[in-house]
């Protein structure tokens, strides 16, 4: 029985971990993404193309996001259907366009996820090195590229087969490949580091008062 419950949680964790790859790459000998201080947050826009194996066209969405090492991640989809996903130390919560909150997962391990994001954005690769083989390179355009491959025997292999992240000042592109043959291609733009506090609409979402 226990493994089922943990399985559910771990699936969510795996997804979160893949999401955390956004903006994580940095190497000692190549340009690195800007570090987000604990009193800062990163804001920007995204476009996500979800390619499903066997389907010709991807599912495309766009919106904006806010990432705070101290508070968590708000992923706000604006097109084609409004909806928000919040990843913080309480777990994963979805909010639909009518403000209905749906808690997908809760638990202490999600606190670890937020800590993981903070560590990665601070240039600390150690948390990822436990689960991934990491290769770093530069692209022809001079951007850095980080490829994360789950280590053999790692349970995350069941959800992720490979992650490729590229960028300059920030992470700009993430390609998340799954064992099913599906992959997500995420493009981040208009990113900027700003000081806390978060904009009120995002702060309200993270505290749950925005519904």
């Amino acid at each position, binding site marked *: 029985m226990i493994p089922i419950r943990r399985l559910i949680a771990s699936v969510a964790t795996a997804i979160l971990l893949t999401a955390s790859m956004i903006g994580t790459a940095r190497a000692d000998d190549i340009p690195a993404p800007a570090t987000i201080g604990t009193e800062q947050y990163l804001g920007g826009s995204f476009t996500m193309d979800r390619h499903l194996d066997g389907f010709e066209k991807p599912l495309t969405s766009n919106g904006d996001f806010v990432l705070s090492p101290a508070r968590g991640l708000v992923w706000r989809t604006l097109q084609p*259907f409004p909806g928000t*996903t919040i*990843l913080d130390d309480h777990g994963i919560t979805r909010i639909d366009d009518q403000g209905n909150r749906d808690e997908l997962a809760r638990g202490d391990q999600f606190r670890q996820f937020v800590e993981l994001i903070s560590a990665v954005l601070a240039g600390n690769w150690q948390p990822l090195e436990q689960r991934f083989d990491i290769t770093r390179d530069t692209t022809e355009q001079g951007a850095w590229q980080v490829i994360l491959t789950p280590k053999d025997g790692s349970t995350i292999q069941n959800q992720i087969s490979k992650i490729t992240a590229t960028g300059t000042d920030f992470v700009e592109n993430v390609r998340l490949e799954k064992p099913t043959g599906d992959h997500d291609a*995420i493009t981040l733009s208009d990113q900027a580091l700003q000081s806390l506090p978060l904009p009120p609409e995002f702060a309200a979402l993270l505290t749950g008062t925005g519904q």
Partner: protein
Amino acid sequence: MALRATLWALCLITMAVFATWQLRGGHTGIDADILSLIGQENAAPNGPQTDIATVRHLLANDGQQAIFMLSHSDRDTLETAATDFAGRIAALDGTQTITLPRHNDNRFADLMALYGPHANSLLSPSDREKLANGDAETLYRRAIQNLYSPATTLSSQSLKQDPFALLPAFLSDLGAKLGTGNDVIARDGQFYLPVMASLSPDLRSSGNDQKWVADANTALQSVTDATPGLSVAKTGQIFFAVAEATRAQSDVQRIAIIATIGILVMIGLVFYSPIPLFGALLVVGSGLLAGLAAVVAIFPAIHAIALVFGATMIGISVDYALHYLVLCSAAGSPTDRLHKIRPGLSLGLLTSVIGFGALSLSPTQLLSQIAVYSIAGLIAAYCSVLFLLPLIPARDVRPSSPIRKLHDGLQAILGKTFAPIRVRLIASAAIIITLALAAFLIPGNNDIRQFGHGNDALISDAGKIADILGLGGSPVFIRIDGDDPQNRLETGKAVRHALTPLIADNRLGGMIGLSDLIPSITRQTENRGLVTTGLYDRFGAALSNQLPVNITAPDMDAGYLVPDEDAAKTLPEITLLHSGGSDIIRLRNATDIDAIRLALADIQNVTLINPPTAISDQFAAYRLWAWIALGSALGVAAILAVLRYGFRTGIFVFAAPAGAILFAVLGGYVFGIDQSFFTTMALFLVFAIGADYVLFLAESRNSPHDDDTRLAVLLSLISSVLAFGLLATSSVPLVRDIGSVIAIGLIGAWFLAFWMTAPTETNHNTQTQNQRGQE
């Protein structure tokens, strides 16, 4: 004579070799778990089970698990230490599997393969309620959002099977029902990580449980030493059983050593010679040896309590030796002396065998082991008296012996208590009537929790782990009976419905049953209908427009998910929620049992079972059975006594052990000893030894060796009280109670044996002393 002695000695040597080989070679284990030896008579393979059978089944499963709770203020340090520790535990012989957080994530594919095809038949209660209330649009919006969410389980395959993303909600709800498992738990700035080990089913019976626990403790110590700040706790039946067995073994060794030394000193003070000591040791040793050999030959594991009783064999078998050894050398050749005591010895053995024979018919292996041990041991002691003691040079009791003087003094005192025949008849009738009343009227207390010693550290650890995992409260569970598995699933659903309000107001922490993992076909059909009309008919086309795939309504004739063998392969948890022909619902943190019972009152085929209560009830039933068996043994003894001695003397002879039993019962009651099944069993020993006393005296009455017999009985009393009195010092409450009851009963047996067989007119003490003077 020499040939028989040689053959018997060879038999003893063979038994010694065999018993050593069985125990040292691990062919026979030592078990201290009371549960392992009760209720097995109820093990029906199919159909509704008794409460105790279900309890046994569940505890047998749970008993194969050991939980270690590691905690540290730093999570990474904790996980590193736990991983190291888990590796050490996994490497131990007897560990089947080890479970750490995130170690079973690869089950996801199997789980989706099982549930995926039935996604439209599986609804979380929340989704079901929304569909039933016509609020399908919320689910549609959720499905749309799921398509574009960064946190999703969406895949090309899941989109085909479950386009409305119903399965994640079902699994999420299932996860909540399962409660806290072995995730890392944070509380008050401390992180806790449970490491769960599944143990081999034969670990205990193979006798390797003590080694496993020792190795696990070593591993625990290593990881604690290597990780400053790490705290550990452990729990599991294996730890309690090994602790109890170790304590019982220690008690047995201590008692056996002290009792043996005490008896040797006593015999030394009587004969001033080591030769009778040798004879007594020979008889006692052969009794212990034969009892042990018989038990290990018949049973795969010996219960620690049977071992304790085995140690008390010293107190019984030495009676036989003393009965022979006290005979003075002037009484004739060894064969002559043997002939003098043989009738009493044989009758004593016969009576004891009848008493313990009633035990051997007992429904519990524990009592059967005690019976086998005792019968084999007594027969062996008897044989040693017949075959070996005659070869030992006779040594007379020294007139200056302090015990002889004590004996004479006691005889003088006893002589003043002797009563006429009529008084004895009245007393006999009173004993019989009072014993019957006492058996009915003195309340029993068979609470299982009072029997064991309880290891404070383990109890503390268990409480801590239960608290962290949210597994406190009463350990109750629910059994659902019924021939049709689908009906049982329906009943499980009704139970879930009835108890949900109690979960909501925290009177019940949670519950999980088979119907949570596999809904009934009726429920699956209803779900399909709701999904079809609520989602596919209304929003199927709209969703199709968003996807490069056609959405088609569920096939109402498709197969259903059922709890069959295939499902159990993916979900081994199914087997833990099933017992015999019944389903099980496990409850967590049940704090209001009355409310649970009330909520279930109107549901048919449902039984709320409290394991401690079920076990205690079983012992209460055994206690009743034991009284019936004891009554039967007394009845047989009465018939034998009347046949042997005539009605009047026969009644006296019978009343002595019966009175000893009454003495033990009333004495135990006065001293506040709980009247349990086990103390009732102790009365069998009181009966057997009490019968020996009175039979020895009755057989030697008016014979030249009458005084020798009286001395032998006193020596027997001293040795028995020494042995059983030492049991009363045991740290195990069960053993302590048994020892106390027997010690009290034997004093009564000794007095009544004299009183009931006393001469009627003359001063017996003067007579016997005169006789001794003439000799």
